[in-house]
């Protein structure tokens, strides 16, 4: 049986791991290569690196980080943040990333998903979406935000995700704009809506504060994977603890 994945996320800027609230108030949380190796040995199923600085100089630093990580971490690596072109993606994949996630660039140029899928395979193409709750005639909807969550686009997130999968996205990294950084649980209405909408895997992101939250995203939210940053970074819980908790609740997970 396919297991559910537990994925620590490393938000990186200028070669350091950072953590903030709703995309602001960043705090330093360590060296990305060390962190990655630590999570690998703890049993992380995959690692996600998001470059939230995303300046051209920071990009070079991240390529370097990915190369180092790929030499000692033997689980899939996904890299995103500020990737704008096929060349940007190729650099990350050549450095050792298995997948690239794109967000703003895909909104601005959806053809990038099709082109990337044709060149690298759709399994490499992760669509990252920052979705912000709103209402439409009292029904819940979600709006796509770009530029690290700072810019609302007016686009309906569900429609966008459906379109992006048709174009070539092989997986959705779904972040709740509202829940991110607040540690009060994932937006499981959002997770469930997207999981039921598309046939590609969905990674729930934004809002994990307890192990129960991970469980809720995988059960109630029907997500295929859960991504979390702060609960792992500050060693409140180990990856192993999280997996043992999920296993005890009947979620299939990989335990080494």
């Amino acid at each position: 049986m396919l297991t559910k994945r537990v994925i620590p996320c490393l938000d990186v800027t200028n070669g350091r791991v950072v953590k903030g609230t709703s995309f602001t108030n960043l705090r330093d949380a360590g060296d990305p290569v060390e962190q990655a190796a630590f999570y690998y040995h703890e049993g992380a199923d995959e690692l996600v690196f998001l470059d939230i600085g995303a300046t051209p100089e920071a990009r070079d630093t991240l390529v370097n980080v990915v190369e180092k990580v790929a030499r000692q971490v033997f689980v899939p690596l996904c890299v995103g943040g500020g990737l704008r072109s096929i060349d940007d993606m190729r650099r990350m994949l050549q450095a050792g990333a298995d997948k690239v996630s794109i967000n703003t660039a895909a909104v601005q140029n959806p053809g990038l998903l099709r082109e990337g899928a044709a060149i690298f395979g759709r399994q490499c193409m992760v669509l990252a979406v920052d979705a912000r709750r709103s209402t439409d005639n009292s029904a819940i909807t979600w709006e796509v935000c770009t530029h690290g969550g700072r810019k609302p686009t007016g686009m309906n997130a569900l429609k966008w995700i459906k379109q992006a999968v048709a174009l070539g996205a092989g997986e959705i990294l779904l972040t709740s704009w509202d829940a991110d950084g607040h540690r009060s649980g994932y937006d499981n209405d959002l997770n469930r809506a997207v999981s039921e909408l598309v046939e590609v895997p969905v990674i729930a992101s934004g809002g994990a504060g307890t192990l129960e939250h991970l469980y809720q995203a995988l059960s109630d939210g029907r997500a295929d994977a859960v991504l979390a940053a702060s609960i792992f970074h500050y060693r409140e819980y180990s990856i192993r603890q999280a997996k043992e908790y999920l296993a005890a609740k009947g979620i299939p997970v990989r335990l080494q």
Partner: protein
Amino acid sequence: MAMNRKSKTIAVINYGAGNLGSVANALVKLGYRPVVTSSIPEVLNAHAVFLPGVGAGGDTMHSLEASGMAAAVLKLVELQRPLFAICVGMQVLLSSTEEDGEHRCLGIIPGKVRKLPQGLKVPHMGWNQVKQVVSHPVFSGIPDNTDFYFVHSYYAHPRDGSAVAGVTEYGIEFCSMLIKDNLFATQFHPEKSGEPGLTMYSNFLKYALS
């Protein structure tokens, strides 16, 4: 002797596709010095060869044929040279694939490559168990039903079970590992499957280079 073994030539075939670096990184981690190469003589002269694969089966076959590597792989099998094929590298060993229309493949293992059944998430992406259906030194130190990392939408369906070494369940039970003489193939990615994956490559190379 370990030192002896680690000085032997290991080629990772580069035919212009896939994440070749991760296979090479895994082998370096194990103390070997692989060469990532698109040179046919280098591949034919290696003591053990890896055929990685990421992407579409039809495209992969096209790249292998265009580069002349298809004939080299057939030659390696004929010579009984130890060969480890991964993911789409496994799929091209069969007779044909139905990915993006019908494409002829290498035909080393009679059978077809089919699309995973509908109703489950596709690609089949993540960690799933490999049930060992043969006993072989390549599984040494790897418990039955260990999780390995998969990412694929098509699967190999050999005509008979004679080469099937491992099976995995995802809607259906499919062949996730083949062994035929010195030919090894996995649908999963050992280089992305943590310590059990590294153990499998290590076992293969001990077997292949002894």
